[in-house]
């Protein structure tokens, strides 16, 4: 296999890596906020259940969660994931969706804890200042607190996002044909090993872009101090 062939094959895998990455981020970032509201809820049963759920997800390996999502429907409920009508026989889509689901839940839990830390670090005075100015709870959250929280959580969120890029390789274990899977496949069929290490370059370049992006956002938010 020539360098070009390997690059093309790895790129086809990297496409899945990127899809998994972007969709996870897109869904987990807002879902994390929902979890945060759940854990911070004054209604005890809701906060108890959400906290428990977040604890379980954060306390178990993502690798295991991937297996649960992909195998439990068939083993326990006799309704194999790949046969769900929604996937219309497209098994690749089924595995991808299963992996995506596990990633979104897992990362939403991590994000929710980051959000919670951020929200709790905002001084009570900010809420009270909003209250005495006649603002509603949602106005206080969205107009006053949110941007300050975003600024504070930018660094940990950036960290988690970069981890996510690398974690996508775990999806290979549940048959998502992302770049790591592809490089393994080249090794197994062509018996050449360098593509395995070459695949690292794709992650590196992508993460360089992300690092730049986050630095840019942090700079944009540096106009105020809170």
């Amino acid at each position, binding site marked *: 296999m020539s360098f070009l062939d390997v690059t093309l094959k790895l790129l086809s895998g990297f496409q899945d890596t990127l899809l998994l990455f972007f969709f996870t981020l897109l869904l987990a970032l807002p879902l994390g906020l929902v979890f945060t509201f759940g854990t911070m809820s004054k209604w005890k049963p809701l906060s108890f259940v959400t906290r428990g759920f977040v604890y379980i997800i954060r306390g178990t390996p993502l690798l295991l969660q991937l297996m649960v999502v992909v195998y439990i429907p068939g083993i326990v409920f006799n309704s194999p994931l790949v046969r769900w009508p929604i996937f219309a026989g497209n098994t690749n889509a089924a595995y991808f969706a299963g992996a995506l689901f596990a990633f979104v839940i897992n990362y939403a839990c991590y994000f929710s804890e980051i959000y919670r830390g951020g929200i709790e670090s905002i*001084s009570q*005075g900010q809420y009270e200042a909003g*209250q005495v100015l006649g603002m*509603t709870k949602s106005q206080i959250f969205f107009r006053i607190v949110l941007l*300050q929280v975003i600024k504070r959580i930018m660094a940990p969120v950036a960290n988690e996002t970069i981890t996510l890029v690398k974690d996508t390789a775990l999806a290979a274990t549940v048959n998502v044909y992302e770049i790591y899977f592809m490089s393994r496949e080249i090794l197994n069929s062509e018996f050449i090993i360098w593509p395995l290490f070459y695949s690292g370059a794709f992650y590196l370049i992508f993460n360089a872009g992300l690092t730049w992006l986050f630095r840019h956002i942090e700079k944009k938010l540096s106009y*105020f*101090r809170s």
Partner: protein
Amino acid sequence: MAIFEAKNIYKKFGDTEVLKGIDFSMEKGEVLCIIGSSGSGKTTLLRCINFLETPDRGEFYLNGNLLFDAADKKSHSDEEIRQKRLHLGLVFQSFNLFPQYTVLDNVCLAPLLLAKESPDYKKNKKQIREEIRAHAIELLKKVGLEDKLDSYPCQISGGQQQRVAIARALALKPDILCFDEPTSALDPEITVEVLAVMKNLAKEDTTMLVVTHEMGFAREVSDKVIFMDNGVIAEMGDAEEVFTNPKSRRLQEFLSVMK
């Protein structure tokens, strides 16, 4: 008729009774200072009046009408409390400006959000925004910050921040402007500039309720002084009277320490 009246206010935190039956009233245009040592309940009283705490018992009246009744739990919903608050403004000890907004936006934010609730906002959007902005600039001029409109809170001094906070509280045209130890977080030389703004407001007959440790200010500016001790009003009266002729031993002790 009194513009504001508090009747028989009680407040407990756990087992600690912080307010044990507070009664007072104030007239329109009056400056009322509340003094007393820390832990006497003066800040809690101010927070109750601004609905940051809910009294366990008692009532507030505004212009003779019932504003709040602790016994009527149904009237304690977030939305009703929010409406009641609009009659009052509060300036905090720690300013609590919104760091991500400019000085001007800090002052404009609440009036803009409030204006959006009015039914004719959509029709006269531009005009209403213009009015709010003009009013905000006018207020900032009044507190001497017309040259800081586009600065962010982190770019100005503590004294300037507190003056912005005063303008922000005034922007909603409250019936009574409350201050919670507005100069305690400031250096003495900066305290002067904030007190000067407050004195000006007093001259313009702004109704003010001030919790303060600044005895000089209280004596010079206030019409009436309340001395709180251990959750009750220990002494209340004309400022000159209270300061020159304190009746209770506690007030005598307190004043001698504060000098």
